[in-house]
């Protein structure tokens, strides 16, 4: 417990120093609020505009979660499907790499056109963004079980699904979780950027783009704080689940004992 407190102290202190320097700097230099509002002003805005921010949050998180679940799930399913065919793998993975070079913001206007202004189009953008990281990672992970373990499963006369369930999926778990963690960030970015291209008049991306237009930068920062907290919490949640599921992995084993 003490060791953890010692781990936490430097970053916390650093954060506090940055915040304090920001507050004092803004006040002393008289930086106008439309350029950089002080942290206290942002906090004030967070408190006074809570209902708006909550409504934006609920609107955006729907697209994020739906897209995240569908995109990651489909990526994993396709990875398992093509796992049996090296031919398909060799055909699909280079294409996957090309698609991941696609600046995903470009997909947003198309999805808005197909699925309308509401959260469904944001979920669709998130699906496109999260599918390929999961496909690529899970494919690598599924190939990761060693030949010795595979032979062992064969001597047990385990069939394909047993080998998959008991050996290869667990062996792929670190890779799958890696993709799940990458995807938390991508999902938030995708949903917010997709909202720049059209929404019902609610949502974090909508709020950012309109409030920038009104030059109420403190509201923009308040929304960014909410987005940052959401993104970090989402990431931390997946991280926690990963620790529970892959407690046997080398990167977690060394600590604690």
């Amino acid at each position, binding site marked *: 417990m003490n060791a953890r407190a010692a781990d936490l102290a430097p*970053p916390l202190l650093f954060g506090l120093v940055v915040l304090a320097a920001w507050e004092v700097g803004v006040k002393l230099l008289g930086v106008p609020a439309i350029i950089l509002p002080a942290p206290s002003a942002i906090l004030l805005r967070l408190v006074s505009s809570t209902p708006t921010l909550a409504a934006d949050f609920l609107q955006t998180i729907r697209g994020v979660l739906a897209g995240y679940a569908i995109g990651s799930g489909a990526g994993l399913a396709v990875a398992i499907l093509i796992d049996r065919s090296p031919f398909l793998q060799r055909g699909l993975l280079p*294409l996957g790499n090309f698609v991941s070079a696609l600046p995903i913001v470009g997909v947003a206007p198309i999805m808005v056109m197909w699925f309308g202004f509401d959260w469904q189009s944001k979920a669709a953008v998130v699906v496109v963004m999260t599918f390929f990281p999961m496909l690529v990672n899970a494919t690598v992970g599924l190939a990761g079980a060693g030949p010795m373990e595979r032979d062992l499963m064969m001597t047990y006369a385990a069939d394909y699904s047993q080998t998959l369930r008991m050996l290869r999926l667990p062996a792929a778990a670190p890779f799958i979780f890696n993709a799940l963690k990458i995807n938390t*960030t991508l999902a938030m970015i995708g949903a917010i950027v997709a909202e720049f291209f*059209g929404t019902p008049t609610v949502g974090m991306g909508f709020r950012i783009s309109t409030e920038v237009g009104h030059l109420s930068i403190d509201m923009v920062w308040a929304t*960014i704080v909410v987005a940052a907290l959401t993104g970090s919490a989402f990431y931390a949640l997946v991280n926690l689940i990963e620790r529970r599921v892959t407690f046997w992995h080398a990167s977690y084993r060394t600590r604690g004992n």
Partner: protein
Amino acid sequence: MKNVLPVTIVLVALFALWYGAAALMNASLQEDAFANAGDTNYTTGELVAAALEMERPKLPAPHQIAAELYKLVIETPPTSKRGLVYHAAITLEETVIGFVFGAAFGIGLAVLIQSTRILERSMMPWIVASQTVPIIALAPMIVVILNQFDITGLAPKAVIAAYLSFFPVTVGMVKGFRSPDPLQIDLMRTYSATQGQTFAKLRAPASAPYFFASMQIGAAAALVGAVVAEVTKSEDGGLGARLLAGSYYGQTVQIWAALFAATALSAALVGLIALAGRIVLRRMAFSR
């Protein structure tokens, strides 16, 4: 080379799927168009053929996008504002300038972090946490803020490209500087090498694979940043501006053409860095 056949077959299957989807998705639109024209006497074949040639389809067929690309890239002179080459050049310029500054800043920060223990312990968690923040969300605001300082034109977009590309570079390079084996670091200590010598002779060369990996991620991120910035500030042109204009006027073919151009640009940048990486790493005798 052994990938050529599978990729070709998957591509052919993909195009077949695409044509099928385009016909299906555009059919109802085309039915309405026929109905409006008072034409009720058409066969399914005619409907499909017309659905693949619509001017504003829901999903343009591949040959329409190819034709649009041909028209905008080959037939239009590169200096014309209506051609894609003009806009792609704007985006490329912002991306490259932003990327160079972003990567340099990211590497500098990584050097600073790896050389100062307390900085690493206090800053790294924030840098990792900042990865979970949708940084792109800041793009519109940065453009407006820089506008206040009379910084306009190319600079704000390059700033956003730099801003997006420096995080992956910092994280990757810190990892790279820490990648040498403890045994090798101990060896440097037995030579009584200074910190600077250890860095120059062991850590920096050892980080080369990480350098090229993070450059690839950084370049792709810089391009995304430039495109997003162009969406926010579309009056100066660029591929992002084309995307936005296309989505305003429902010009789907134009959106898809811009999207393809952006993807090709990004793939070319990343591919170039990967190629340079492969050559350099082979010369440095990294085992891959």
